[in-house]
C-alpha cells in the first residue's frame, strides 16, 4: 500500500464526475475505475493512522521513532514487554468485566421495559421514551462532582462495581430505545398467538420474543459493549489503579518523559482490535441505537 502518497488521486476527484456521462460503455468503465481509485484512496487516508499504529507495534522502539518506513524486520518485542512489564492483562480484564457486566445488567433491566413499550403501549409510553432519551443528554461533566463525592463516600471509587453502575445507567436509554425499535418491528400476531395458547408474560418474553429478536438483542448488546469499552470520561476520573480499564491504561502512555511508540502501539492495537471487529460486524444495526431510531 502506498498510503502515504495518496494525495495525488485527490486532484482527480473534481474531474471524475464531470467526465462521466454513462452513455458509452467505455466511459462507464473509466468512471468505475476513477471511483475505485478515489474511494480506496479516501478510505486508506482515513484508515492510515490505525494501519500505521498496527505497523509500529511490530517495530523496535528505535525503528518506531526513526524516519517513517514500511520496510523493517517485524518483532514481537513490544508486545512481550507490554505484557510482562506493564501488566496489560489486568487492565484488559477490567475492560472485559466492566463492558460485559454493564451490558448484561443494562439488557436485563431494559428488556422488560422495551417489551412493555412495544407491546403494551399506554398514553405515557411516548413520553417515557423521550424522557429516557433526554437523560442521555445530561453532560457527564455536569454531574462529575456529585458522582465523585458519592462514590468516595460509599467506597466505589476505583472499583469495577462503580464503573459497571455508571456504564449501565449511561447506556440504559440507548439500550431501551434500540430494543424498542427492534421489538416494534416484530409482528404482534405471534405474541398474540402465544398468549392464546396460554403463555405467561415471562414465557412470552423468554420463548417467543427473545429467540425471534435475538439478532436485534445481540446488536444492541454489542453497541453497549463498544460504548462501554471506549468510554473515557468516567474511567479516567473514577479509577486509578485497581479498576482502571484499557482507556485509562493507554492514557498512562501520555507522560512526556519517554517516547515509547512501539509499546504504545502494541498496547493500543490489542486494546482496539476486538472492538474494531465487533464494530465492523454490527455497523448497520448500530445506526438505530446511535440515532435513537431516527435513522434506520
Amino acid at each position, binding site marked *: 500500500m502506498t498510503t*502515504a502518497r495518496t494525495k495525488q488521486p485527490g486532484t482527480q476527484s473534481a474531474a471524475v*464526475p464531470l467526465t462521466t456521462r454513462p452513455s458509452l460503455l467505455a466511459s462507464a468503465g473509466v468512471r468505475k475505475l476513477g*471511483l*475505485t481509485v*478515489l*474511494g*480506496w484512496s479516501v*478510505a*486508506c487516508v*482515513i*484508515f492510515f*493512522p*490505525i494501519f*500505521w*499504529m498496527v505497523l509500529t507495534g511490530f517495530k523496535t522502539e528505535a525503528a*518506531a521513532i526513526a524516519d*517513517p518506513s514500511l520496510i523493517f524486520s517485524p518483532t514481537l518485542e513490544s508486545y512481550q514487554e507490554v505484557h510482562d512489564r506493564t501488566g496489560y492483562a489486568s487492565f484488559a480484564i477490567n475492560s472485559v468485566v466492566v463492558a460485559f457486566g454493564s451490558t448484561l445488567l443494562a439488557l436485563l433491566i*431494559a428488556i*422488560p421495559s422495551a*417489551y*412493555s413499550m412495544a407491546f403494551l*403501549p399506554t*398514553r405515557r409510553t411516548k413520553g417515557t*421514551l423521550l424522557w*429516557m432519551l*433526554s*437523560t442521555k*443528554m*445530561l*453532560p457527564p*461533566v*455536569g*454531574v*462529575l*462532582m*456529585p458522582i*465523585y*463525592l*458519592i462514590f468516595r463516600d460509599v467506597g466505589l471509587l476505583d472499583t469495577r462495581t462503580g464503573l459497571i453502575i455508571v456504564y449501565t*445507567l449511561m447506556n*440504559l436509554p440507548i439500550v431501551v430505545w434500540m430494543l424498542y425499535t427492534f421489538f416494534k418491528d416484530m409482528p404482534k400476531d405471534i405474541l398474540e398467538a402465544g398468549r392464546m395458547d396460554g403463555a405467561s408474560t415471562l414465557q412470552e418474553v423468554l420463548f417467543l420474543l427473545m429467540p425471534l429478536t435475538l439478532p436485534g438483542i445481540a446488536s444492541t448488546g454489542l453497541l453497549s459493549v463498544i460504548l462501554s469499552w471506549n468510554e*473515557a*470520561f468516567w474511567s*479516567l*476520573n473514577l479509577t486509578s489503579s485497581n479498576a482502571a480499564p484499557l*482507556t485509562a491504561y*493507554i*492514557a498512562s*502512555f*501520555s507522560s512526556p518523559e519517554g517516547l515509547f511508540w512501539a509499546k*504504545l*502501539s502494541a498496547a493500543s492495537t490489542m486494546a*482496539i482490535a476486538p472492538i*474494531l471487529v465487533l464494530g*465492523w460486524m454490527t*455497523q448497520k444495526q448500530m*445506526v438505530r441505537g*446511535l440515532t435513537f431510531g*431516527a*435513522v434506520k
Partner: protein
Amino acid sequence: MNKTRASGRTVGGLRTLSLQAPAVTLLLMWMLVPLGMTLWFSFQRYNLLMPGMTGFAGLENYQYLFTDPALWSAMGTTLLLVGWVLAITVVGGTLLAVLFQQEFAGRGIARVLAISPFFVMPTVSALVWKNMMMHPSNGVLSWVAESFGLPAVDWFSSLPLTSIIIIVAWQWLPFALLILLTAMQSLDEDQVEAARMDGAGPVAIFFFITLPHLKRAISVVIMIEMIFLLTIFAEIFVTTSGGPGLATTNLAYLIYIRALLDFDVGMASAGGVVAIVLANIVAIFLVRMVARNLED
C-alpha cells in the same frame, strides 16, 4: 399508536408499570440525585481542601465563574471545537456518503476501513495522532511535509487547538459517514435515474435530490455530535492537558480542573450547571425531532 387491544388497556396499565419500573426508577435516580446535588453545591461554599469553610454562598460561585476570564476562554474554545468539527464532519461525511454509495470494486472493504476510526477509543486516537502522526520531528505528517519540501509543523505547540480539532474530526467523520450512508439506502434510485434521463448532471442531482433526502439525517448527526462534542475530555486530557495556557481548555476540561485539581466543589458545580444548560438547549431540538419521528 395507543389503539391497542381493548384488554391490554386495563391489565396493561399495571403490567406496564411493573415492567418499566426498574428502568424508570434507576434512570430517575441517575438523573435527579446528581442534578440536585450539582445545583445545591453550586450555591455552597465547599472546597475539599478547605474543610472549615462551608456554608451558603448565594450566587458567589456564579459570580466568580462569570467574571473568570478562563470561563469565557473555555466557552470560546468549546465553540470553536464544536463548530469546526461539525463543519468538517458534516460536509466531509456527506461527500463521503455520496462517494461510498457509488458502485466500485471492493466498496464494502473500503467502507469498513473508512468508518473504523469511530470504534477506536479516544485515548488511543489522541495518542497515536499526537505521537506518530503529529510529532514535529518524527511524525508522519512532518515527514510528508518535508518530502514535499515544506517546513515541518510543530502541531501541538504552534497549533494546539487545530490539532485537537483534527483528531476529534477524524473520530467523528466516520460517525457522520455511517449515519448518512444508512440514510442514503432509502434514496429512491428511480428518481435519480429519472433526473439523469432528463439531463441533470451529478452536481444537480446532489443538490436537488440527494441533499434534500439527507436533510433529516444530517440534522440528527449535527445534534448528536453536538451533545458529545460539547464535553470532549479524554482527547484533551492525554494530549495537551488544556494547554499551552488555556489554549485547549474547553468547558468540560475547565470543570475538571476546578473539580479534581482544585477540589473546589462549589465552583465546579456552578460550571456543571452551565454545561447542563448548554447541552439542554441542543437536547430540546433533538428530542423534538425524535418525537416527530416517533409519530410515523
